[in-house]
């Protein structure tokens, strides 16, 4: 069942297109840096100014640039479509009469969305890494603390960063899955999930609401950068994972409670 769900997902043109866009964004950034020159040190998003010295940093720059919008957009599309998309196509009634089992289906959907989150982050990092390595010199990785790591150990940290970014998206994915159980209109669920993302951005911009800022699922999204310190600073990373786990627990339970009792009219 699990492999079937994954092949069904990745055979879809829409999903393939999303991944292609996710690969194009970092490539475009690297091309711009190569042919128009990079920003001066201290300007632009983190890691961007280091790309010209070391192509490996393009992977990190790509993650930094795509994390606020492109990655969550892709996750919203896939998560929002999970149940509502089946309902919209009418396949939900057939999937449930197979019988796939409601809890089992929801678990399979949660699994495919999670895999998509990790794949999406990996595609971004890989596209950045490959285009960076082709267009810029590659060498030892200078950490944020100013020391250097071997290329191998630096690459390992970049891989871990991509993994953390993937995990960072799971909270939003859980919200999307829950919204997906509320409607038979996939576009509505996708828009709703994106709305939650935008709302989180708006709340972050309001200093009056600083007391709730630490609890937003986007609060520690940039914490993966801490992996690039010589001695990795785990506080923010762990905090981020805790937040994501909290959102997953809350919204996965809500999705389960909703979906297992829902009248399937689609």
């Amino acid at each position, binding site marked *: 069942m699990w492999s*079937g769900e994954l092949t069904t997902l990745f*055979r*879809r043109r829409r999903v393939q297109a999303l991944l292609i866009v996710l690969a194009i964004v970092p490539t475009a950034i690297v091309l711009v840096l190569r042919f128009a020159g990079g920003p001066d040190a201290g300007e632009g998003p983190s890691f961007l100014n280091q790309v010209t010295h070391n192509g490996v940093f393009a992977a990190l720059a790509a993650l930094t640039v795509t994390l606020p919008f492109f990655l969550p957009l892709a996750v919203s599309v896939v998560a929002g479509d999970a149940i509502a998309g089946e309902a919209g196509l009418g*396949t939900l009634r057939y999937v449930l*009469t197979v*019988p*796939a089992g409601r809890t089992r289906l929801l678990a399979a959907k949660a699994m495919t969305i999670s895999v998509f989150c990790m794949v999406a982050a990996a595609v971004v990092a890989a596209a950045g890494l490959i285009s960076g390595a082709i267009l810029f010199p590659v060498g030892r990785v200078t950490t944020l603390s100013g020391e250097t790591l071997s290329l191998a150990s630096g690459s390992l940290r970049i891989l871990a960063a991509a993994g953390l970014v993937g995990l960072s998206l799971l909270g939003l994915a859980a919200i999307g899955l829950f919204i997906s159980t509320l409607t038979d209109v996939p576009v509505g669920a996708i828009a709703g999930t994106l709305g939650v993302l935008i709302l989180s951005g708006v709340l972050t911009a309001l200093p009056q609401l600083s007391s709730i800022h630490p609890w937003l699922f986007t609060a520690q999204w940039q914490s993966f950068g801490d992996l690039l310190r010589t001695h990795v600073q785990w506080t923010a990373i762990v905090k981020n994972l805790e937040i994501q786990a909290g959102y997953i627990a809350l919204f996965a339970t809500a999705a389960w409670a909703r979906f297992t009792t829902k*009248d399937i009219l689609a």
Partner: protein
Amino acid sequence: MLDEAADRPAGAPRPGGSTTAIQTFGLTKRFGSVAVVDELHLSVPTGSVFGFLGPNGSGKTTTIRMLLGLLSPTAGHAELFGRRMPESAADVLVDVGALVEGPAFYPWLTGTQNLLRFDRLLPHGRRAGRDKRVGEALERVGLTAAAAKRYKAYSLGMRQRLGLASALLQPRQLLILDEPTNGMDPQGTREIRHLVRQLADTGATVFLSSHLLAEIEQVCTHVAVLNLGRLITQGSLAELQARAGTRLRVETADVAMATEVLQGLGLRPTSDGPRAVVAPVEGDRTRPEDVARALVSAGVGLAGLAVERPSLEDTFVSLTGEGFDVVR
């Protein structure tokens, strides 16, 4: 939910018996204040081809959705093979193939890929023989040639066939087919009828919903009629037809004399147009050959003599006293 004993009518079989494939006990579904299905006591014998008749909007699909555990009833409950739905869905539905409210598949996958996906969804689904199962199901509904085409390129009839193929992926004890010939050409309709008979021959119970009386009449052994969410009648086709009665139809230019002869035989003829007389007959008491002999020897010019068994539509009208599409 009501207590199980309380909502079972007196005389209804106990759950757990294997003589009924489908049984409902006061099954009711309300959307708001409207009862779409109203206190349905349905009993589908195992091995029957059961026609579930009703005009559009009579609650057939809502009933089917409750049978399959997609909807929770507002009151009462439904059992498949004596197992309560939707609680036993995971165990029972493995033996049930269904076509509900038209086919639905993933447009971006081919026919084969779609069926493979559904096959993989089965709990404890066996990987072995998967391709063979899918190939056979496609062949059974005549879709082999279109197996590699994407579903979005399928015509309505092909989609319906793929839906049936999906219902037939596994050996089934019960098939619930909601309007299976929708969108099919006459050839396709004939093939579906043939398929239904084949399935019945293997001992499977087939529950067939339709708003087309003629279609049901040709394949069914049992019938239930639903109107506005309420069960109007159910029983074997023969039983229902017997209740409506058989009649003898004599076609002749000599209506007056034919009437006299028939009265002489103890029948109660009435004229049916200027050139025909009809008379109800009970069972085998009046043999048509005797009537023919009597008419000929009396010198009646006999243009035609027929024993008319009532069509399902006639039966329906005689049972309810109203047309099929009459809305209260």
